[in-house]
């Protein structure tokens, strides 16, 4: 079976429908003073797909994710989101457009309970004003209960019911990673960015996390862009892979295409200079 990946939408071998382009990055260049972190990179992310960004350390992967989530402003290039060019905006405004992300070194709110952390993920769904919240009547209470129900679904999905009321500071690393994923998922994002979701995990935890990522994509149709170092995981999970090295894009395509790309092999295994 051949699939035309340039079509508006197509069906993958395992039966998922990949839709049109959600996020289109055009000729992004990001500089920190004299250091060029990202050099003229273009790629797109399509609806419903799992898109991986890989590359050796310092390749500019995390910087790329920070550009997408609005934390860094690229000096050149355009970010197109759902068919329109994104004007310069603050990260919280980007989040309102439907982007959610997790962080390489966990960025949870340590002093709050798991439930409160996950509820914070839904802050764009709640708009009771300060006065309504102060008297806890009408809209404020209604929203709180509705969103609690939505959060409980995420909690069930990620199997963290038992730690609902535990302060995040007391949790072990693997669970924190899962809670962070829950917080991002609770926002019902149209694009979910995962920065090394499996860093520092053992095989069992990696398997759990992979299952959650696949299930998320399958059940909720969440579009996911992820950075990961474990090649086995990346090749198994993703539909398409972007490979970066020294801020440049050196490969882009299906896992099989990337695996056989000579530039990629050189970047990972090194090449003899004679």
């Amino acid at each position, binding site marked *: 079976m051949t699939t035309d990946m340039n079509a508006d939408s197509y069906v993958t071998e395992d039966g998922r429908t990949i839709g049109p382009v959600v996020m289109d990055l055009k000729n992004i260049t990001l500089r920190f003073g004299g250091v060029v972190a990202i050099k003229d990179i273009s790629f797109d992310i399509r609806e419903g797909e799992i898109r991986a960004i890989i590359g050796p350390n310092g390749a500019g992967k995390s910087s790329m994710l920070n550009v997408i989530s609005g934390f860094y402003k690229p000096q050149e290039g355009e970010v197109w989101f759902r068919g329109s060019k994104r004007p310069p905006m603050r990260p919280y405004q980007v989040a309102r457009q439907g982007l959610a992300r997790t962080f390489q070194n966990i960025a949870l709110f340590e002093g709050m309970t798991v439930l409160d952390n996950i509820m914070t993920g839904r802050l764009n769904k709640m708009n009771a004003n300060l006065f309504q919240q102060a*008297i806890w009547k009408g809209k404020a209470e209604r929203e709180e209960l509705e969103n609690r129900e939505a959060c409980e679904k995420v909690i069930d999905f990620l199997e963290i019911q038992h730690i609902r009321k535990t302060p995040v500071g007391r949790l072990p690393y693997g669970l924190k990673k899962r809670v962070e994923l829950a917080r991002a998922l609770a926002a019902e994002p149209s694009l979910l960015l995962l920065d090394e979701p499996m860093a520092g995990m053992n095989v069992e935890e990696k398997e759990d996390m992979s299952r959650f990522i696949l299930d998320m994509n399958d059940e909720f149709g969440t579009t996911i862009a992820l950075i990961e170092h474990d090649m086995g995981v990346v090749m198994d999970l993703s539909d398409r892979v972007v490979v970066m090295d020294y801020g440049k894009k050196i490969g882009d395509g299906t896992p099989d295409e990337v695996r056989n790309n000579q530039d990629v092999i050189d970047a990972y295994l090194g090449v003899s200079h004679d």
Partner: protein
Amino acid sequence: MFYREAGDFKTSYRDDNQTFPIRLDRAGYWIALFVAFCVIPFFVNDYWVNSIFAPFFIYAIAALGLNILTGYAGQVSLGTGGFMAVGAYACYKLMVAFPDINIVFHVLIAGGITAAVGVAFGLPSLRIKGFYLAVATLAAQFFLVWLFNKVAWFYNYSASGQINAPERSVFGIVVTGPNTEAWAKYMICLVFLVGVAWMARNLTRGMTGRKWMGIRDMDIAAEIIGVNPLMAKMSAFAVSSFFVGIAGALFFAVYLGAAEAGESFGITKSFLVLFMVIIGGLGSIFGSFAGAAFMVLMPVLLKNVLVGTMGWPTEIAAELEFIIVGGLIVIFLILEPHGLAQLWRLTKEKLRLWPFPH
């Protein structure tokens, strides 16, 4: 043995969200409210109100305000005294200018004015954090006190530079001025305290509170998941100053009756309220009460023990009081850096299992 959640099944998220999830806690809360509203007012006299209840209630309001800013939103402030002065002077000007309007509204509007001033002085918090912000709020403290001393309009050009609370009443009961009865003083402070505590609890358990705590715990992550840092910090300054302003208005109008900015609302007041919040527990409503109670009651208790029971001379007792209270603060902070609220939390966790060790 009796203090546990076993058998108390929650069948809705509303039940699960309530402030006191354990039955005994709920009962204790209602009993405390009943005693405070229906029993104590019939027994209080001037001594109890002036040395214990009024300062305790008013400082608890101020501590709740500061706890929202420092404990929940993580913005250190040393300007509490200055903001209390804004509440006091605003209340004074309103009382004099509009004598026909109920004093309750004056106090609330004074809180609103303080909220606006608090937001203005909170603007630097967008750029600076931690100790540097503390220094910026210290500037607010000195500026505000200087302003109320220098500009005679604020104290209506009175010769002494003091402001004096005129007699005002609520529902025909005098609550300010020298003719106020003890129970009326007690009641008005209590009503404001219960209202403020209820609002503080509602705000901190909802989305506003989560935004504040998000900014406190990790501001960059909070912004990336959608918290507008400007709105979160400004709302924290506004709500905090509103409460502190109410405390200042009551402190002047109901408790002191007459005030002078430098003396009543100096830097020591800022530190006193900050101590209450730290000793009570940052980020805890109960901690605000516990801290205020500790700082108000401990000196009174020591004085009674040293002078009353042991018969020491008053001057020596007064000096010793400072040493002992200071020592107790240090000891408490070493034993439990998270304050009385954490101590209470640990006690409750132990109680839940008692008489078994695990």
